[in-house]
């Protein structure tokens, strides 16, 4: 019956209107404008220090914007403290109260409202069901495992019946297996609860698997907003292309543009690639060709639109994939992933291999800042 807990809940949209956050001379968030729909799972994705946490604090009310407005459910939040906003924040370290029992932690928001103990306990038990931790209410926080603490933090935040739940990298402390499991779990909880989730992460895997839409941030600026496939397949900037997923980078100069493809002259060769960004690219521009490791194929006698020869310098076997690192004659490093279908032969380190990729699988973008590795 856990599904009933949230049948009556509401979700609100969140609107950022030219939001700036400055600390002295440092601009943490630069002119952010976007609308997050009610009931959406929205992620801010970016490297540490890109301003995503600051933006979250501006939405939750812990940080007042230097300029611009934050609207939740259409209402301007200026001057409204975090305790009076319809938001709940899950902290990176969860910030559970160590001296309270699990159920007291969860029902703290009700305690604040003066709800009596029986009702609080009942609500806490319902929420424990929702996060798949039935009967754990009497435990102390330190008796829980990492994943269980996670769920308690979610339950505690949901108890306030927020219209918007804000999550600040809550999975970063978990190990990989648990993290992957909690992604599915969080997504399921969000759909059951039916409220807006705003998720902060530097892990593109998390953002891609859970989110309806993603905003990719770089140095306080939102570079691109879109759903997972759009951001992954149609990056608008060099930064997005290099930050979201792995990409091989070939810098050069545009030789020719025809329709939706361009030909770029690079050190490693002349490559055809599709145009991705809405910003115009013309012949003579400095540009970068991006190719995903999984889009590069072994030539094996087949002619590819773009082909090159490179020396194998490293290979890793990961079961379903071979990960190869090669070096072209021009010195560019190329990473490629070859699906292991059982017939893939092992290559010798140092051998020269012919590889290629299609113009459709590569994209060309104007030269710009790349994500640091």
């Amino acid at each position, binding site marked *: 019956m856990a599904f009933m807990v949230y049948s009556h809940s509401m979700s609100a949209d969140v609107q950022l209107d030219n939001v700036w956050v400055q600390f002295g001379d440092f601009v943490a968030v630069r002119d952010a404008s976007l609308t997050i729909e009610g009931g959406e799972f929205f992620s801010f994705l970016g490297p540490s220090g890109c301003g995503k946490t600051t933006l979250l604090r501006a939405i939750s009310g812990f940080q007042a914007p230097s300029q611009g407005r934050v609207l939740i459910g259409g209402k301007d939040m200026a001057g409204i403290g975090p*305790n009076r906003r319809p938001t709940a*924040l899950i902290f990176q370290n969860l910030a559970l*109260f*160590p001296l309270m029992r699990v159920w007291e932690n969860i029902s703290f928001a009700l305690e*604040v409202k003066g709800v009596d103990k029986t009702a609080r306990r009942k609500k806490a038990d319902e929420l424990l069901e929702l996060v798949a931790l039935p009967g754990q209410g009497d435990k102390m926080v330190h008796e829980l495992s990492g994943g269980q603490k996670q769920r308690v933090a979610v339950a505690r935040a949901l108890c306030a019946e927020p219209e918007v739940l804000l999550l600040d990298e809550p999975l970063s402390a978990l190990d990989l297996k648990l993290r992957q499991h909690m992604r599915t779990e969080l997504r399921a909880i969000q759909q059951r609860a039916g409220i807006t989730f705003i998720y902060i992460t530097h892990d593109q895997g998390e953002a891609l698997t859970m989110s309806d839409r993603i905003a990719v941030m770089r140095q306080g600026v939102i570079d691109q907003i879109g759903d997972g496939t759009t951001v992954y397949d149609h990056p608008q900037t060099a930064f997005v292309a290099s930050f979201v997923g792995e990409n091989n980078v070939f810098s050069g100069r545009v030789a020719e543009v025809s329709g939706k493809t361009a030909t770029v002259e690079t050190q490693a060769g002349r490559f055809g690639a599709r145009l991705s960004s809405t910003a115009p690219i013309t012949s003579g521009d400095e540009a970068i060709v991006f190719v995903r490791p999984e889009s590069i194929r072994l030539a094996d006698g087949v002619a590819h639109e773009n082909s090159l020869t490179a020396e194998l310098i490293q290979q890793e076997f990961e079961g379903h994939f071979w990960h190869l690192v090669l070096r072209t004659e021009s010195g560019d490093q190329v990473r490629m992933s070859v699906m292991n279908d059982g017939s893939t032969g092992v290559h010798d380190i140092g051998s020269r291999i012919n590889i290629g990729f299609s113009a459709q699988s590569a994209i060309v973008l104007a030269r710009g800042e790349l994500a640091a590795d």
Partner: protein
Amino acid sequence: MLGWLRWFLARNGVALSVYMLGAVALWVIIMIVLPQLFMLDFSFRHNWQQMDPSKMGGPEDVYTLVNYHFLAYGSPNNPDPFNVVDVTVFFRTIIAAVFVTIFDLAICYPIAYYLAQVARGGKARLLVLSLIIPFWVNELLRAFAFRILFGEEGTINAMLMGLGILSQPIDFVREDVALYAGLGYAYILLMIFPIYNVVESLDKNQIEAARDMGASWLRIHRRVVIPFAKPGITSGCTMVFMLSAGALAAPQILGGPSSLWFTQIIYQWFNTGSNWPRGSAYAIVLMLTCVLLVLAVMKIFKVKIGEIGR
């Protein structure tokens, strides 16, 4: 224990181990255990030294409860059912020490919280310095300065009368205001630092989380900060209470003419009374009462003794 000893020897070598263990043992035995045992022994003896030294070590030099009996009932020709003066002073001292402790806690908790969670960097350091530097002035000097401040013709009375708030000076010393202020001030650092230490290790996010869930400042302190700070509060309160109850200089200088501190009575037995056994008995009763009271309060507030050390 034997295993630990072997490990300790192996780790530090014989010479260093013997020195360290010996130093600690000497410290514990000579500075802590022996003096208290002597006092305990004294407290059960007749004061033959003073009354008839020839009986010392003789057949009449036996253990007795006469000194404890005196504290409770006074001399044999005391008309009252119990030793009114000493017992009253005893309880008044304990209650006053409790009061000083509560007073200090009320003042120091906000300061410690501010230092630990609100102030940053230079500001916090400046504040700590301004708390410590006044203690470069020694206790006696400070006590006499308080007399000047609180005296009938003192600064405070002069100010209040100058402002027209008072028409008659108030004798703060007689009213014991000076004493409480002096005692309270003497031990604030012992209250602030233990609380500060604990509160500093409290995760700021917990405070923000509570705030995010709509908790008022009062509730945040009651439910999050104070439970967390309990070990610090306990050790601060214990020290302030013990030291206030056992203070001598401040009551001597700042106490009103009619109010005695129990330590002053103990001092009189040891000093002018030349009755060390009786003084010892009084001192031991004071010590035991204080310890039991502290343990009882810790029991009520569910603080374990191990937590205090953290």
